[in-house]
């Protein structure tokens, strides 16, 4: 019980801390931040329920007005801006990522985590992000989708790194990978 709580809180803090990792800019000028990798790690390491809760907790603190998002952003305004849909999709993205890692145990953890991060952390997250963008910017869904495509390559890189990190963490701290416990 205490472990569930501290893991959830510490991962919410981890997402915040990853927001301070300097941005890496891809060859074609699109910045990628480590924060959405934190969302993937929440799912792959904590599992569906705890991972989703950790992200919810993080977003709650952002909504309360703490500047925890990359670039020191925070506050209620972010949720109604054009990228607000991505934020709303984050907890569900972590949940789906965690669910896949919990259920699919036949392949190596690195492969499972990478695939789970792509399905949860990219596919699910973009569904919400694109819907949010379509509403705020009054565009059709395909048009909104087109506006986000530039970020996909960076997110695939992050999913692969999240997969490798998860399998390395499972070696370093096997008892801490709660998605595979029990």
């Amino acid at each position: 019980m205490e472990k569930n709580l501290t893991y959830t809180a510490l991962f919410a803090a981890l997402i915040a801390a990853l927001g301070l990792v300097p941005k890496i800019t891809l060859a074609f000028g699109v910045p990628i931040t480590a924060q959405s990798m934190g969302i993937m790690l929440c799912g792959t390491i904590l599992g569906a329920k705890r991972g989703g809760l950790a992200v919810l907790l993080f977003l709650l603190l952002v909504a309360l007005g703490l500047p925890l998002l990359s670039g020191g952003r925070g506050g209620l305004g972010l949720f109604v801006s054009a990228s607000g849909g991505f934020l709303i999709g984050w907890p569900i993205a972590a949940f789906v990522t965690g669910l896949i890692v919990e259920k699919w145990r036949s392949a190596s953890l690195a492969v499972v985590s990478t695939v789970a991060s792509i399905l949860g952390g990219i596919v699910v997250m973009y569904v919400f992000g694109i819907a949010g963008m379509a509403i705020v910017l009054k565009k059709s869904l395909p048009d909104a989708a087109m506006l986000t495509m530039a970020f996909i390559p960076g997110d695939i890189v992050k999913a692969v790194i999240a997969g490798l990190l998860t399998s390395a963490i499972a070696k370093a701290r096997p008892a801490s990978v709660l998605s595979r416990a029990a």
Partner: protein
Amino acid sequence: MISLTSPIETRAHHWSAGLKLGLLCATTLGLFFVESLIFHSVFLLGVIALYAMPGKAFFISGWQHLKMLWPFILVVAVWHLWTQEFALGATIIIRMVAAVALANLVTMTTRLSDMIEVVRFLARPFARLGLNTRALELSIALVIRMTPVLVSKGQSLSWAWKARSNKRSGWRVILPFTVLALDDADHVAEALRARGGLTNMEKK
């Protein structure tokens, strides 16, 4: 950790946080049902006036928080210049700026403690369904406490990397960083249990 609440006291700081949040929800929802450019322009002018009322320093810090919108404004502007739907483009931009500005205004005029009070109030019905509200409050406190701790640990890790290599550490420090966070989580869990744990808190 410093919250985004403005240190410049305004009258709105003393209003009920629940009321401000309720009004914000209703207004934002309403904005998305109105299509008139004139309405949105007048509304935005009203929001700008609200920002201007507490003085220059407040206005400037409000402006700083809105700067993150410029990529979206640019995209919409270019898009609608291309399709020649100028009025529609202007409406979308003005509505987005007004909605975000109004929400930021609530964030800037509401203290963290008042916000947490609202969360506590909203969580109360869920307590009957079995949600441990004290656990929720403890997790909020833990995140606020542990974020600066993790940030400083991350900084030490990247300094340790820089002392040994002239290349940038990039994502490679994230592995030891995550392991440190997991160890911290274990230690904090043990410390909580040693002090009676979560069940003890419920009894109080």
